[in-house]
């Protein structure tokens, strides 16, 4: 059992404009990227489960071989820096991904 935290080189979240937070998971080698991809545990369902969102709220979940990366985005509950926001830069929303088991 291996988690994303053990396998990925970069796991980050960041604003993509004031209304979207985008998540990047980058792998160092093609081998690890392909292993994670074919294991199928890093999936739309897994991400939806982690963030408590429904499938139609998850934007653009995809694997990008050219960058050995996985990317998805979420619409923010409130706009960046407005009332009730808790993370103006959106840079601390990645942590639940660290413990996701992605290889059996």
């Amino acid at each position, binding site marked *: 059992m291996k988690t994303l935290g053990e396998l990925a080189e970069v796991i980050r979240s960041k604003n993509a404009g004031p209304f979207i937070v985008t998540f990047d998971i980058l792998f160092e080698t093609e081998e690890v990227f392909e292993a994670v991809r074919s294991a199928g545990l890093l999936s739309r369902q897994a991400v939806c489960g982690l963030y408590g969102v429904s499938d139609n709220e998850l934007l653009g979940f995809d694997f990008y071989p050219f960058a050995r990366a996985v990317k998805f985005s979420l619409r923010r509950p409130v706009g*960046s820096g407005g*009332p009730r926001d808790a993370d103006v830069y959106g840079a601390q929303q990645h942590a*639940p991904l660290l413990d996701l088991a992605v290889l059996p």
Partner: protein
Amino acid sequence: MIEQKRGDEFVVVSNGMLGYGFREESLRDAVAAGVDLIACDAGSSDPGPYYLGTGKPFVGDAMILRDLRLMVQAGADAGVPLIIGSAGGAGGDGQVDHLLTLLGRVMEELGLDRKVAVLRSELDRGTVRAAVEEGRVRMFETGAELTVEDVDAAAHIVAQVGPESYFRALAGKPDILVVGRAWDVSNIAALPLMQGRDRGLALHMGKILECGSLAARPTGGGDLILGRLRDDHFIVEPTHPEKACTEASVSAHTFYEKSDPVMLAGPGGSVDLRRTRFDQIDPRRIRVSGSAFREAERYTVKLEGARLAGHRALTVGGARDPAFIRSIDTIQEAVRDKIRETQEGFIDPSQYSITFHRYGLDGVMGAWEPNRQAAHELGILIDVVAETPEIAEAVCGLARSTILHVPFEGRRATAGNIAFPFSPAEIPAGPVYEFNIYHLMEIDEPESFGRLEWLQ
């Protein structure tokens, strides 16, 4: 060591954020090797709507002056233009004026008399209202259509201008071009595009260079970055001798801060990266090829507007009692109810909002937090945003005294529920803005968009 500029290439050295600093030798070495342009981004929507709403800069004058001195002098030494986009942070007219004041000081200090063009992109409400009424404004990532009411409520509205809007200014051969809110790519791509170079490559190069050395490793210690645009590819290289651009660093940066990493949307169309290749040509440099421009049906610019959302007062305290921590959800509701009841007839709940940020439970992630296990102590930030500063402070004070004494299940400590670190516990925190416009506006003639001025 930076290689000498070749005759057939367009070389740009880029500063990712005016005032965030760079290594002085980096600029000197780049200029010595030959550059065609010094480009500099000076803004972002990242620090939030406050800066657009108030017109205040988010980088201090002293830091801006330091970068400006070096870049203005380098531009004069090399005899190449300096382009600064998103002046003042959010790019509103007042922020552009502030940057021009600083620029004037720098030119005087350096004894330089440079030809300065200014392209402003703040829009008056009438212009945007007309666009809404003519159906030229499209919904974007807010999930809501723009209304005339939104336009009227905005304190400032700016448009992110594309590179085509720079052409008119650049045709007049300015030494320095200062632009209001700009698509960050424009600062780098406008001049090569005007010279007829490949659109897909020029825009993609702009996208990679616009954050400065963030596309190089190691990322710590911001610096400049250099791009060489050639006929069928471009090269990205760091100006810092200890940094390197690698396949991973450059392709990873292609992902940064954007939701679609293979179609980079901007004014006029998108850069299609599906056939892009990133090749390591030596340990420090990457060659990028294959990026293609796909023209959109209509040319659009992104509008940004911020409106006053209210005035803030806040208080911070800590809870250590396990029974209190277990009951935090019901305690919050009790605090809200109590304030509503005691203020009936005086302050209406529609005049304020109270947000409890519960650090140690879900303060960072809110509803997205999957781990609902509370820590042994909670930091509680009570954030009140209200119609007036007086209401914000009154409600915040009530929230403070109520949460201090509100009863809850299993309470043994009847003297007070929260440890407040400060006296007074409430902090008035000024006006709060929110982005209420983030939409796309169709324009017919990008080349004549924006207001151009010349300064002597």
